[in-house]
C-alpha cells in the first residue's frame, strides 16, 4: 500500500517536473490578483490599499493552489485513456493506493505552486516572520491536501476532459468566491456567511490567513483543522470507492476505456 502510494507520487512528480515551466506561468495569476486587482480595489476600499493586499494575500495563494491541484487531478482522466496507467492497473497495487497517491501528488504540486508566491509577501505588505511561515506552511499542507482531494474526487467521475472547464467554473469558482478569499466574511451578507460554512475552501483560506494575521473567521481554529481532516477523509473515500469500482472492468473507476474491444 505505502509503496504503491509512493510509486504513484514519484510518477506524478516526475511528470510534473517535465512541466516545471508551468510553475513560473502559474505565478502570473496570483500576482495579477495581488498587485493589479488588489491595488485597484484596495485603493477604493475601506480597508485601504496596503491593507487590502495584505488581506487577500492568503486567499490568492489559496486560489493558486486550488487551481493547481485541480489541474493535477485532470491527469487521472488522461491516465484512464492512454499510457502508463494501463500497466499500473495490472501491477499488484491496490486501487486505494492509486487514489491516495494521486491526492498526495496533487497536494505536493499545489503546495509548490503556493510556496513560490510567498517571496512576494513583503511586497504585498505582509511581514513574514519565522513563526508565521511555519504556521502558514502547516496550513498550506492541509489546504493543498483538501484541494487535491476535491480535484481527485471530481476527476474520478469523468470520462472526458472536455467537461472539466465546465466543472471548474461551476464548482471551483463558486467555492473560491464564497470562501472569503477576496473579502472579509465578517462583513459579508448573512447568506454568504452561512454558505461559507459549507465551503471547505473557506476553512482552508481562513486557516492560512489566520496563520499570518492571527485573526480567524471560524473559531476556534482547531475546529477548522477537524473539518478539513474530515473533508479530506470523506473525499478520499469517495475516490477510492470509484477507483475500486473499476477493478472488474479493467478501468480506473467510472470510465470504460482503453484497450478492450469486444
Amino acid at each position, binding site marked *: 500500500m505505502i509503496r504503491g502510494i509512493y510509486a504513484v507520487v514519484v510518477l506524478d512528480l516526475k511528470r510534473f517536473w517535465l512541466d516545471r515551466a508551468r510553475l513560473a506561468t502559474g505565478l502570473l495569476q496570483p500576482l495579477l490578483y495581488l498587485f493589479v486587482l488588489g491595488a485597484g480595489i484596495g485603493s477604493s476600499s475601506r480597508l485601504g490599499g496596503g491593507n487590502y493586499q495584505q488581506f487577500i494575500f492568503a486567499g490568492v495563494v489559496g486560489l493558486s493552489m486550488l487551481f493547481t491541484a485541480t489541474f493535477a487531478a485532470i491527469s487521472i482522466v488522461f491516465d484512464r485513456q492512454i499510457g502508463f496507467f494501463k*500497466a499500473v492497473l495490472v501491477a499488484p497495487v491496490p486501487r486505494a493506493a492509486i487514489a491516495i497517491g494521486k491526492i498526495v501528488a496533487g497536494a505536493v504540486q499545489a503546495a509548490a505552486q503556493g510556496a513560490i508566491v510567498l517571496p512576494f509577501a513583503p511586497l504585498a505588505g505582509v511581514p513574514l516572520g519565522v513563526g508565521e511561515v511555519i504556521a502558514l506552511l502547516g496550513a498550506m499542507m492541509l489546504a493543498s491536501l483538501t484541494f487535491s482531494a476535491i480535484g481527485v474526487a471530481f476527476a474520478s467521475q469523468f470520462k472526458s476532459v472536455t467537461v472539466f472547464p465546465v466543472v471548474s467554473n461551476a464548482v471551483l469558482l463558486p467555492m473560491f468566491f464564497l470562501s472569503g478569499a477576496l473579502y472579509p466574511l465578517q462583513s459579508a451578507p448573512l447568506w454568504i456567511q452561512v454558505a461559507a460554512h459549507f465551503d471547505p475552501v473557506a476553512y482552508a483560506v481562513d486557516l492560512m490567513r489566520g496563520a499570518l494575521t492571527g485573526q480567524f473567521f471560524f473559531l476556534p481554529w482547531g475546529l477548522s483543522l477537524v473539518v478539513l481532516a474530515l473533508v479530506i477523509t470523506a473525499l478520499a473515500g469517495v475516490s477510492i470507492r470509484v477507483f475500486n469500482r473499476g477493478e472488474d472492468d479493467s478501468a480506473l473507476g467510472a470510465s470504460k476505456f482503453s484497450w478492450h474491444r469486444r
Partner: protein
Amino acid sequence: MPAVEVIGVVKRYDRVEALRGIDLTVNAGEKFALLGPNGAGKTTLFSILATLRTPTEGVARVLGRDVVAERDAVRRSLGIVFQEPAIEQRLSGRDNLLLMGLFYGLGTAAAKQRAAEILGQLGLTEAADRPARTLSGGQRRKLELARALVTNPGILFLDEATLGLDVDARRGFWAQVGTLAASGRTVFFTTHYMEEAEVADRIALIDRGRIVALDTPRALKARIGGGVIRLKTDDDAQARMWLADHALNAEAGTGEIMLVHSDPAAALPEILRHLPVRVQRVEIHEPSLEDVFLKLTGRGFGGDAAVPANGAGPRGPGAGGGA
C-alpha cells in the same frame, strides 16, 4: 503444474455473451497462441487472464493461482505487453522501468538496478535516457517488453504486441520473445498475423466466444487433408462443370476456382492436360491456418488476411485465401 488453466469460462456483458464456455490448458514453458478474428473473444479472454476482468462463470488459474481470488499473486507473476503503448512517452525508458519496479514493490535502488539489467539484456541501453516518444516504433515495442520483464515474470502475456510494426521490427521483436521463451518462460499471445501464430507450440483458434480447435500448427493444417489448388481460366463455369464430372469438388464462389486435393502436385498436371478450357493462372499452396479457420467456422478471418468473398459460404475444406 500448467501455466494457464481455463475451465468453463463464460463472460457476459449486459446482453452480449463474449465467451461461451472456454476450456484450455497452457503447459509451462510453452509458446501458446490465441488466434481469431476481431470480436471472437480473444481480448476478453486475455483480460480475464491478465486480472483486468472477472469471468461471469468458470475458473481461470495462472501458475496455479486463481485470477479472482488470488489476484495480487497472479499480478505479481505476470508480465504483460498490451496492444496499445503502456509507457509514459514523455519519460525516458529508464524512468519508465524504474517506476514499474516501484509499482511492483521494489525499493528504489533495486528498481534502478533491475532497469539497467533489462535495458542491457534487450539492447536498449543507448536509447534508455531519451524520452520514449523519440524512439523508433520497434524500440518502443521493445521497451514495452522490457517493462513487462521488470518483475522477472514466469509467464509473459502479449496482446497483439506487434500491431502496426513493420516486418523487420516484428521479426526483431519475436526473436527477442524467442530468446525469453528459450530460457523457460511461458509465452501466451494473441495475434492477427498468421506467421506469428506459426511460431507457437500450440494454437487455439477462437471464434464467437468458443475454442473451435486447439492443436499444434502442423496438426491444425493437416486437418485440411491436402493442399490447395487455385485456378483462373477463360471459362470458369465450364471448368467447374468439368471438375465436377471428374469427381474434383471445387468450392463454390466466383472468381478463382479453388479445390482441395490430397496430392495437388500430382493431380495438377492431369487437370491441366485435360481441362477443356484455357488456363490463365494456376497456384498450389500449403493449407494455411486461415484455411483451417475457414473450414472450421465457414467464415473468413477479416483483418489483415485477404479472403476472397465467398457468398454462399464454403461447406468443405480448402476455400481459404492465400497463406
